[in-house]
């Protein structure tokens, strides 16, 4: 049977998030009263509401056909990894090092074979970034890798 999987998964995921938030708020934060609301009041209500809305999205989707989602796992992993590398690399590798590493990783899933263009791209973007942010905008950043 064909089902609208994106809506089912999306709706159920929201329900899960809503329930978790609501449960956490109920357990950890003071609800207060209607007149003097505590810090838990809003998150608890919003969590419950989100859980309900998730079900409203997911349940009707069980009985209808939907558009299949086009997932691109390789692109997603490379793009997210390049951001994480940049984040952790910035204090250690400096602006130049972090940029080069993250550009190289990001370019991996591009539908064009060969290494030459990737290296050229890496050098070009690194140069541009250092020029714009460090020289031009004067952001206080270490440019080169930190020597041990």
């Amino acid at each position: 049977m064909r089902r609208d999987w994106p809506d089912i998964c999306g709706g159920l995921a929201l329900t899960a998030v809503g329930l978790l938030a609501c449960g956490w708020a109920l357990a950890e934060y003071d609800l207060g009263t209607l007149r003097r609301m505590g810090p838990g009041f809003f998150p608890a209500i919003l969590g419950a509401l989100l859980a309900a809305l998730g079900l409203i999205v997911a349940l009707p989707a069980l009985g209808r056909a939907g558009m299949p989602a086009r997932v691109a796992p390789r692109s997603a992993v490379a793009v997210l990894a390049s951001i994480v590398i940049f984040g952790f690399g910035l204090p250690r590798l400096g602006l130049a090092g972090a940029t080069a590493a993250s550009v190289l990783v990001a370019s991996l899933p591009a539908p064009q074979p060969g290494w030459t263009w990737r290296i050229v791209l890496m050098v070009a973007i690194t140069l541009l970034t250092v020029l714009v942010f460090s020289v031009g905008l004067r952001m206080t950043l270490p440019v080169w890798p930190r020597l041990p």
Partner: protein
Amino acid sequence: MTTWEGLLYGIGFALQPGVLVYCVLGVVLGTFVGVLPGIGAMAAISLLLPVTYYITPEAALIMLAGVYYGAQYGGAVASILMRLPGTPQSAVTALDGYPMVREGRTGVALFAAMASSFAGSVIGIAVLVMLAGWLSTAATAFGAADYAAMMILGLVAASTIGTGQFAKGFAMVTLGLLLGCVGTDVNSGVQRFTFGQTELLDGINLVALAMGLFGVAEVVANVQDPDRQGVVERIGFRRMLPAWADLRQMGWPTLRGGALGSFFGALPGTGSTLSSFLSYAMERRVARRPERFGKGAIEGVAGPESANNAAAITAFVPTLTLGIPGDPIMALMLGALVIHGIQPGPLMLEARPEMFWGLVASFGIGNLLLLILNLPLIGIWVAMLRIPFRWLYPAILVFVCLGVYSVRGLTFDIVAVAAIGLAGYLLALAAFSPALLLLGFVLGPLIETNLRRALLISRGDPMVFLERPISAVFVVATIALLLLSLWQAWRQRRNARADRREAA
């Protein structure tokens, strides 16, 4: 000094070469920085602030103001061309601007954004000049109950902007509101959902959220998209310019957006974001064929752009006339003045008329310069789309990271972009609207804080929302809007049923 004398004096002041040069410098820098994804006016101004210690206070403020609205023009370009809004305001512009690009109407979309931004700022300046005194009283007349009621009306009105199922849109608003709860609760000081991370005490970084939801999700979806590997868009000069029909469609939305923006901009808070969302919602409501929205409707670009630029101008009203900055950017501007030994406030208009009127005149001159600067650039921006996407996106990612980093200088926020980006990509796969999440996130803390504050001040009496006249108007309007929506939905269903019966 009468208003006209003041304005003439101001124009004379702002046209002095020594002042004009900083205005030009500001708008050029602002445009350039605004185009970089993730770097908005806030980051640009904080980076440039130390530079202004060495110039006169008038020149400093005029330059920073130039950066401020220059960054708005640039931000519109980034969100239209690449769906990379650096701020919630330009997220609205991306809703219809980006579909226009994919239809091959890039030039028209950019023209619409520029022209309506300019028109919006002219409206804003007119309002500033004529109604500054009245608007400044509005800022103190609004209490916590009034803000809460107004924000709720804004939320309800704008919740309809998503396309597709209502439940999905509403779920995104709710998720946004919930994410807005993260951080220290203003009313109790309790740290909610921070899990011991000091970086989360002030909440999730807004820029990280916007870039993760829009930018990163967009890049992931397009890395292997054959359509984006160098779009060879054949466009002559004629296709870059809007047709007469386009211009006619832009007229009223621009005026309405400008009016909305002028009003909300003057209120401390998030006037500019609220006004662009409201303008979009309004255009969708009055449009004869609302289903075109989200698929490249030019009104969806013109209205919000006009609104947020008008709001950017009138946001100076409480800052200059009361010395009360409405948002972090205005607080920065105020800081810049205080560093120079000038305390804006109720006495500024009398004590430093050259400053006030010079600034007002420079707003006009700066926006004119931006229009002149940006129209020829449209050709260059369109040409940029021909660059294969694989050459662009690694640079986009690095710029996004640096843009987010520039806000607070914390690498935590960069890693947060990756996490939010993953969530944003999954939400995009299931066709949930990120713009509505962003709206909920921006308005949520304001609604919660003001609602609870209003009840605290009234010692727990909920009647405060009906006793205060401003709040009462908003409450009634919200109820009317809800009833109207319900009635429309009921009528639609009845018509659909009637059609089906006829068909049978």
